[in-house]
């Protein structure tokens, strides 16, 4: 079941597209990572989903609803922290949550304590929001977002400005929320950061969606392997298995095999194959790091 589906979503500022014909689908249970540089259009995309901005064209479907009034109602099943968390500076953590509990008609008063416990902010006492650190602000913003038990959570760069411990805590929290059944759309400018939590990814650049892929596809793209180009892949595969003891390999084309097992000496492969009369046209290490892959993807778009 799709939680969010956009079709050709477009938003322009001064004639320049900030989001350009973006179509993507977030399925129930996903932790969907939206990756892009600063100014790529991630936040604008999220602002369109949350109705903070109006799209110039395209369609948004949230929980299957597309008609404006029903779409607005569907947003009550959603929580979000877009850009920096915004709460009342002169209220404490409990008071801020109590404000939103009353506003959203949540009868269960214990939800305030539960939300604070989830984000580990139970001990802030009378400290006002204006005196909170960046990490505490992020966590309280998240507490407000989860207060009404949303089915779908949108987090815009939730680890921005956090220290390493804060980043780990936020990552754990995202995983925990996902385990509780919440579908998440999380943005970041770091693929390596999102790769640790997300199961689907979309790379956005200059407002355009460049690539949408699953975790498996990403791993495949970034997997380190030994690429062997030969004149007879079938025989080469047999030799790899029987002579060199390779079990994890894949035929990627009519002349190329990729070996994912660790091979300490690639020249041994060339030697054995040649010995069996197979001509080795090329042998090389392939596969990108996450950052290489990301840079290559957005680089190719420019």
């Amino acid at each position, binding site marked *: 079941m799709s939680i969010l589906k956009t079709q050709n979503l477009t938003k322009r500022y001064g004639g320049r597209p900030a989001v350009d014909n973006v179509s993507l689908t977030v399925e129930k249970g996903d932790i969907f990572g939206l990756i892009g540089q600063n100014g790529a259009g991630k936040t604008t995309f999220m602002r369109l989903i949350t*109705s903070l901005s109006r799209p110039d064209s395209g369609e948004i479907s949230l929980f299957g609803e597309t008609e404006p*009034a029903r779409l607005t109602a569907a947003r*009550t*099943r959603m929580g979000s922290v877009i850009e920096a968390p*915004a*709460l009342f500076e002169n*209220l404490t953590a409990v008071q801020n949550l109590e404000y939103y509990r*009353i506003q*959203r008609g949540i009868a269960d008063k214990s939800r305030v304590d539960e939300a604070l416990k989830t984000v580990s902010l139970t001990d802030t006492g009378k400290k006002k929001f204006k005196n909170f650190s960046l990490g505490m602000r992020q966590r309280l913003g998240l507490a*407000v977002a989860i207060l009404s038990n949303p089915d779908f959570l949108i987090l815009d760069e939730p680890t921005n400005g956090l220290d390493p411990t804060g980043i780990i805590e936020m990552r754990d929290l995202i995983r925990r929320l996902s385990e509780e059944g919440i579908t998440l759309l999380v943005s970041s400018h770091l693929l390596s950061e999102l790769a640790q939590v997300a199961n689907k990814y979309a790379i956005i650049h200059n407002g355009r969606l460049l690539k949408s892929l699953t975790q498996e596809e990403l791993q495949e793209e970034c997997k380190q392997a030994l690429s062997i180009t030969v004149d007879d892949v079938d025989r080469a595969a047999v030799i790899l298995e029987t002579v060199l003891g390779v079990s994890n390999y894949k035929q990627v084309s009519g002349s190329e095999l990729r070996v994912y097992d660790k091979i300490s000496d690639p020249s041994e492969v060339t030697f054995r194959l040649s010995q069996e009369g197979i001509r080795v046209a090329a042998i090389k290490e392939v596969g990108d790091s996450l950052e290489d892959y990301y840079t290559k993807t957005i680089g190719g778009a420019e």
Partner: protein
Amino acid sequence: MMNMIRADMYRIIRGKGMYITFAVLIVLNILVIGQGLHVGINYGYMQDSVGVEAPNLYNSWHSAATVLYNNMNSIIFFLLPIVIMSAGAMFANRTVKNDIAWGMSRTRLYLSKLLLAVGLSVILVVFYMLSGMIIAIILRGFDGSVPSGYWQNLFQTVGSQLLVMLGATSLGIFMVFTFKRSSAVIAAYIALCLIPSMIIMMLSETVAPGIIRLMDFDLMFSIVRLGSFSQLDTHVILSALGVGAAYIAVCTIGGIALFKRAEIK
């Protein structure tokens, strides 16, 4: 919408703004009632333009009501903290995005802030009158007797002035949703309350006397005029009330239309 208003009351009660506003109002009343100060009233102009007699300064507790009616136009400035507390706080703290992103319709959000500000404005006017009367009783003593028709006149006068005040409240809310910055709202609100009447009076005295008719559309002047409710013709009363109603309608419809199209920062 009621939940939104309840939540805002929860927030306002925990802030200092409301208490400071009411404390300053008490101080103003002590000055006005106790010292016989008249803030912003031009009795000479009142007598000349609409034939209203300057009030007989009170010699009994109940005469304080007349002073309070005639100073009601100064209360228009106390509506500024009311509208900023009601709606301005959500723009100042940028919490408006939480409300919209959560699925609150922009129309409902606007109306809930307007209703809250209207409610607080009514409380402010009632508090102004009550505190003024109590101060007068403390200063002059309470003899228990009032002239005939006193209460009817009091309710008619304050009620009609309140309607025009709510026009000013609607204007303030419109400005908050349009400008989104408290400093801009304060400047624009004060300017719109004071400057048009000053210009009209200046021009009517120097260039075109007929232009004085434009004063009929001025909020401040309408409030001052309704302070002499019992002495006014029906058409003057209706005209003043019409100004208040027009401000409420135009500001609310225009404010919602603008806010529906606005980008939320």
